């Protein structure tokens, strides 16, 4: 169980986090979604005790990371800032971690095998591809067979097969009743695997909930008209939440297509399209609307 409560973090004058609150329960994959620079990594670093919050608490199973007795056995983490000593082999990297965390050395071979890195294990990590580095970092996270997985942009550098493998890993992990929190700025990575989604932008959580709930509550209606300006005026007059998409298209949230249709007919605007989007499209719109709102303001 991960519980983040009202954490704030300033970097100089800039507020990276402005009171972030969310949770990731066991038995579910929680996707932490937000554009680059939204504060995802900062929040995860605070959870891991790597950065200090100016306020608020970030707890794992009710305890601060730094107070965990054997953190590697509780939390497995992959974050962006992890590197490898280029001359050290992948196997030796894992042996070092296992040694420091008092984890049996036999576990090293197990995780190497699990991430399919056995063949490259005795080569210097400096020569690894990005995907191999990512898998080595994952292996390192899995060494302690942790109850909580905390992954920052884990899909970076993975090929499609690697992605499918990662999705299976996350889902299996959650199915065993463990906690998975992973961040991404790529929507499709999140929606295929997350049971719960936390959307963060400009250092604030803008939406949190079960994935279906987020899709369901945000039915997006797409309208297209040659006279898009009149359409925009209408949407503004009606008080709809909308976003311009391209030259002649509006994406509208919070109202049904029937309501939109009758209002448009009443205003005498000729539509070239009126549709409800597929769920992918909806989440994407929601994501874009929520995360670009500040720019429009």
């Amino acid at each position, binding site marked *: 169980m991960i519980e983040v409560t009202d954490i704030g973090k300033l970097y100089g004058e800039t507020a990276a986090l402005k009171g972030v609150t969310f949770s990731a329960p066991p038995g579910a994959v929680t996707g932490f979604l937000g554009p680059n620079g939204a504060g995802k990594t900062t929040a995860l*670093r605070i959870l891991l005790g790597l950065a200090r919050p100016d306020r608020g608490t970030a707890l794992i199973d009710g305890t601060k990371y730094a107070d965990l007795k054997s953190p590697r056995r509780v939390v497995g983490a992959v974050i962006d800032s*992890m590197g490898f000593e280029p001359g050290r082999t992948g196997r*030796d990297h894992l042996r070092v971690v296992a*040694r420091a965390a008092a984890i049996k050395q036999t576990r090293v071979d197990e995780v190497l095998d699990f991430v399919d890195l056995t063949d490259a294990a005795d080569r210097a990590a400096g020569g690894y591809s990005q995907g191999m580095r990512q898998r080595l970092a994952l292996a390192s996270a899995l060494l302690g067979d942790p109850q909580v997985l905390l992954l920052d942009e884990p899909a970076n550098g993975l090929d499609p097969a690697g992605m499918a493998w990662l999705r299976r890993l996350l889902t299996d992990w959650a199915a065993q009743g463990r906690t998975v929190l992973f961040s991404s700025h790529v929507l499709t990575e999140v929606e295929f695997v997350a049971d719960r989604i936390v959307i963060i932008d400009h250092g604030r959580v803008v939406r949190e909930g079960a994935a279906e709930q987020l899709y369901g509550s945000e039915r997006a209606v797409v309208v297209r008209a040659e006279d898009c300006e009149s359409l925009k005026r209408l949407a503004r007059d009606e008080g709809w939440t909308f976003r311009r998409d391209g030259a002649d298209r509006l994406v509208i949230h919070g109202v049904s297509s029937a309501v939109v249709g009758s209002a448009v007919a009443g205003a005498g605007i000729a539509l070239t399209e009126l549709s409800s989007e597929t769920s992918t499209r909806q989440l994407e719109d929601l994501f874009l609307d929520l995360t670009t709102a500040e720019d429009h303001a």
Partner: protein
Amino acid sequence: MIDLLAAEVLKLRTTRTIGLLLLAMVGITGLAVTGAVVLASNANLDLQSEHGVRTVLHVSASGALFVLVLGAMISAGEFRHRTATDTFLTTPRRWRVVAAKLVTAAVAGTVFGALAAGSALAIAAHLYALKGYTFPLSSSEAWQILGGAIVYASLLGALGAATGSLVRNQVGVIVGWLVWLLLAENIVFGLAPDLGRWLPGAAGRGLVLDPNGNFLSQPVAAAVLTAYAIVIAAAAIVIERRRDA
């Protein structure tokens, strides 16, 4: 703490550069001893006298700079290669990491120092024989100097690790120490020897009974260097507690 130390030693053993550093240290020491013997015998110094032995052997710490590099690699190297994140995830109590690195660097420094001192002795004895002398193995100065060189290497390792933890920048630490030991400290020592002899490099010259100047005695020099390492490591711990990794 035992696990942490074992992990630090394993890190060192699986680093490519460690062999090169050792080779460089032993090589420089050998060259320095050879040079000292040649210069001393050209100056018609009695190589077997106490002064002769000190003149020849006090250079056996010449390679100690490489131990400083090693110490900096042990601590600041983790930030260079961004392995510090992994280290702090395993050991979130950072004072333990700083302390483990200090101890590891001191132990590695002792091993390096012993190997360098051993080769200094072997080369000196060999050159003495070539020049028709017998190396005075019974001279207590010889063993004091070699022992002092080992202690110096050990403490320089600790100093390198401590400053590396404090500064986190491996190249910066190494360059900083080079400038300090080879330049700044000599200037201070030249201007105010009474103050200068308490500085780290001069304390090292006291440890190897350098005959060219009035340096601290061995026990005082060792205590001074130990104090430097501990104070800097303590500063690193205090700052590390507040710092983001």
